[in-house]
């Protein structure tokens, strides 16, 4: 661990694979900027990889004041051990007060290893971050300007706010899709700090024999409108109605975990606690009862239309438009209405 350092910077792990910057660190730059402004400290991106210096400029456009650039041929492919070694070295050298990671498969592999080596705290899968104070009731001690790490727990049934006041840095992984993407500003230039990296083959604990990455079949996060179906859709045949309405709205088709488990649609379309988190302009929920795990992934939608046969379905509690009815009748009516108006 490092000592509490109120002048410490706010850091964001700039996750990249094959020289391509992931979306989640970009999302984190907007929240990181906000935290850094509140604390009046710089925002820095930490960029590790083989040859990745060309990404520094973009990180500047997205709001980074600084980029710590650590390049080494042995870091071309992400590996827990090598990245942990280099990242911990940087934390010990610069003593940041906050370090943020995307809660991606890579971020959730790396962040706990770093936190354990640093003997520092880490909160997983945050959905919001704020700056605030914490009082220890028994002693009356007040800690100001702490990172409030806000996350759902117990399957989304409660929201916990976690803090770490003494064993720094304050670290968190943040769910993908919950922070808005910042608008790039090409005038914003980051100061690039090149780090010397010492790594040898013995720092690599694993050998990558083969790898395959595929693009997701659908980009739910980037969709303005989402039409999602749940178990209430009833069958794969009926699920065609979801696709039809999505096509006619220029929307992406989404689904609940139940609908995915029933084989109505591919897992890439899953929205919720264990799927993608979305915040579209319009969310149409058809045959979705509104389990808390699903709501966790879509309740921030600007407008929600819910169609359900059960007037008591919890989804109606967060819906702007409540349609109690049979979706096999309602959806064709909607398609007809949209085709006529447009």
């Amino acid at each position, binding site marked *: 661990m490092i000592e509490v350092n109120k002048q410490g910077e706010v850091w964001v792990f700039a996750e990249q694979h094959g020289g391509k910057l992931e979306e989640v660190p970009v999302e984190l730059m907007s929240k990181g900027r906000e935290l850094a402004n509140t604390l009046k400290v710089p925002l820095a991106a930490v960029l590790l990889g083989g040859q990745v210096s060309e990404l520094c400029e973009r990180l500047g456009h997205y709001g980074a004041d600084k980029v710590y650039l650590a390049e080494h041929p042995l870091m071309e492919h992400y590996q827990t051990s090598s990245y942990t070694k280099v990242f911990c070295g940087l934390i010990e050298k610069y003593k940041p007060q906050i370090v943020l990671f995307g809660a991606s*498969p890579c971020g959730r592999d790396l962040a706990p*290893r770093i936190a*354990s080596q640093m003997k520092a705290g880490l909160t997983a899968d945050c959905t919001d971050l704020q700056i605030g104070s914490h009082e220890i009731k028994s002693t009356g001690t007040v800690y100001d300007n702490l990172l409030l790490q806000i996350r759902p727990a117990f399957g989304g049934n409660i*929201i*916990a706010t976690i803090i770490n006041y003494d064993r720094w840095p304050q670290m968190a992984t943040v769910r993908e899709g919950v922070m808005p993407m910042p608008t790039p500003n090409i005038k914003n230039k980051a100061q690039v700090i090149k780090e010397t990296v010492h790594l040898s083959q013995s720092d690599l604990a694993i050998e990558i024999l083969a790898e*395959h990455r595929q693009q997701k079949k659908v980009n739910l996060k980037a969709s303005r409108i989402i039409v999602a179906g749940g178990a209430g859709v009833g069958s794969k045949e009926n699920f065609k109605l979801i696709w039809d309405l999505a096509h006619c709205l220029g929307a992406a088709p989404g689904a609940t975990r139940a609908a995915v488990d029933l084989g109505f649609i591919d897992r890439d379309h899953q929205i919720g606690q264990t799927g993608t988190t979305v915040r579209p302009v319009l969310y149409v929920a058809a045959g979705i009862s509104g389990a808390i795990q699903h709501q966790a992934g879509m309740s921030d939608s600007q407008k929600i239309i819910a169609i359900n046969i059960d007037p008591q379905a919890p989804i109606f509690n967060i819906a702007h438009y409540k349609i109690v009815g049979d979706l096999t009748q309602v959806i064709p009516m909607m398609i007809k209405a949209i085709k006529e108006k447009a």
Partner: protein
Amino acid sequence: MGYHCVVLVKQVPDTKRITGQAMNEDGTVNRAALPAIFNPEDLHALEMALDIKDKFGGKVTAMTMGLPTAATVLREALFCGADQAVLITDRRCAASDTLATSYILSCGVRKLNPDIILCGRQAIDGDTAQVGPQTAEKLNLPQVTYVEQIIKLDGKTIITRRNLGNGWQEVKTKLPALLTVVDTANEPRVPRALRLMKYKTAKCRGEIEAMAKTDPSIDVDAVCKELDSKGLLIQQWDLDYLNADLRWCGRDGSPTKVHRIQSVVLTAKETKEIPPTQASIEAMVHELIVDHTIG
């Protein structure tokens, strides 16, 4: 030949089947509303370990940290085929966060000196996925997360296939190593009838002590001795037995603290009820076009 696999398991509240209110009015978690189960992904880790034993020989040890009541999941592991079970229980473990938990578990694993350590990718109560990697770090061992399949085991190294969500990776690492297992890895076996008959009376010392509280005629030492002679005593270790450094255990050993807990309150926004008629739906669509939501 053969491998000693230690499977780290957790008893968790069944967050998917919450009956009644998840929270008490004073803001604490209402345990009574949450039935306790074997963490689902840990069952897949156990299955992977049992499969290694079936193919290569060796033994499987299930280990958990928790209250004596957590021995329930250890019995389930014994029913399914685990050879031995270890409960780490100590009041000084209370309020451990993932880092302190990992430290304590690593002390337990060290006692067993296994070839392979397996655990579920994450537990459904916290969904953190941190204890696996942190336990690996505390043991200074390589971690392989999101393991879906073991491709090859040759005594000194292991080749596994990782499911990365948007693709996969095949990796080779030296043993010993720690694997976290995903739920697409296998179909966990169900308890075997013969094993269930044999191990249903298996208990840890803490459970016998709890029974003795209501029935003073029970001689705890004598019952433990008898169970042990039949191979039915679940081993129970405390922090002294583990030689654990108390600075890294429990509340003191946990850098993260709870600032606040809130029950999720579904915010009822202004809801317009639209009857399922063509005219009403057209009016709704018109409204959405006018405010530029669609079109």
